[in-house]
């Protein structure tokens, strides 16, 4: 199930769709924060040093290069769609659950290497637990931008423009994430 189209087809006009989107963002942020908490707990198991930062940067750059070389990202993931049954208890509760499962990565398709780079950075760089949680919250919020734009655009241009730009978007996300990993490693070294 596609969140953008489900919001647009909610049937109560743009104002209602935006209210549902707010619930969806809350779910996405919760889902992102839950996954980030798990990553933060794993990251706390070993000391962070210049060595772990350099290893993280090397993996991050490799993943970004992989994203630019392949036509379609094929990294380990669940490849699962959110079922329509999440809306059995109403649209509000449905979008909250949709957001949590989508934001946590439990049920989604990951078409960019950038989330993997993000995980590697959170595991290898000297990042505080608070920053890890914030990263998870904002990752979830970032996932909500596309559906919000779909609701606001209210025409077919959004999906056409997105269709043309989606691979570029995915690669830009990876390039940005890898540049942060590289800079963080260099900052740790010097």
């Amino acid at each position: 199930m596609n969140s953008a189209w489900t919001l647009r087809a909610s049937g109560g006009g743009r104002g209602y769709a935006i209210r549902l989107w707010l619930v969806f963002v809350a779910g996405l942020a919760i889902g992102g924060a839950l996954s980030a908490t798990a990553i933060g707990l794993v990251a706390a198991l070993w000391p962070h040093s210049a060595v772990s930062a350099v290893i993280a940067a090397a993996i991050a750059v490799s993943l970004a290069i992989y994203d630019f070389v392949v036509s379609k990202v094929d990294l380990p993931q669940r490849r699962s769609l959110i079922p329509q049954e999440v809306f059995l208890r109403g649209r509000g509760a449905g979008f909250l659950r949709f957001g949590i499962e989508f934001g946590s990565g439990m049920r989604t398709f990951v078409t960019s290497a950038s989330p993997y780079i993000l995980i590697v950075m959170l595991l290898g760089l000297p990042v505080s637990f608070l920053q890890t949680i914030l990263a998870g919250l904002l990752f979830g919020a970032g996932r909500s931008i596309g559906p919000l734009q779909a609701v606001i655009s209210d025409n077919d241009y959004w999906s056409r423009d997105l269709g043309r730009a989606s691979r570029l978007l995915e690669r830009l996300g990876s390039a940005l994430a890898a540049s942060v990993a590289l800079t963080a490693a260099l900052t740790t070294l010097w």
Partner: protein
Amino acid sequence: MAVLGSAPRLALRRVLTSPLLAIALLGGLTLVLLAQRRPEWALVTVAAASGVSLSGST
């Protein structure tokens, strides 16, 4: 918006709802934080950019 005709209004809405604009703004903020040697906070903004980069699979 009311003073704009329908074609410019549509063009403006198309720019404002462009996924590329969203990632460009977040990417710009990330690069500013990197230039200020604050990679730990750039990581937080790049997390949002990472979420936007998945707009194709919403």
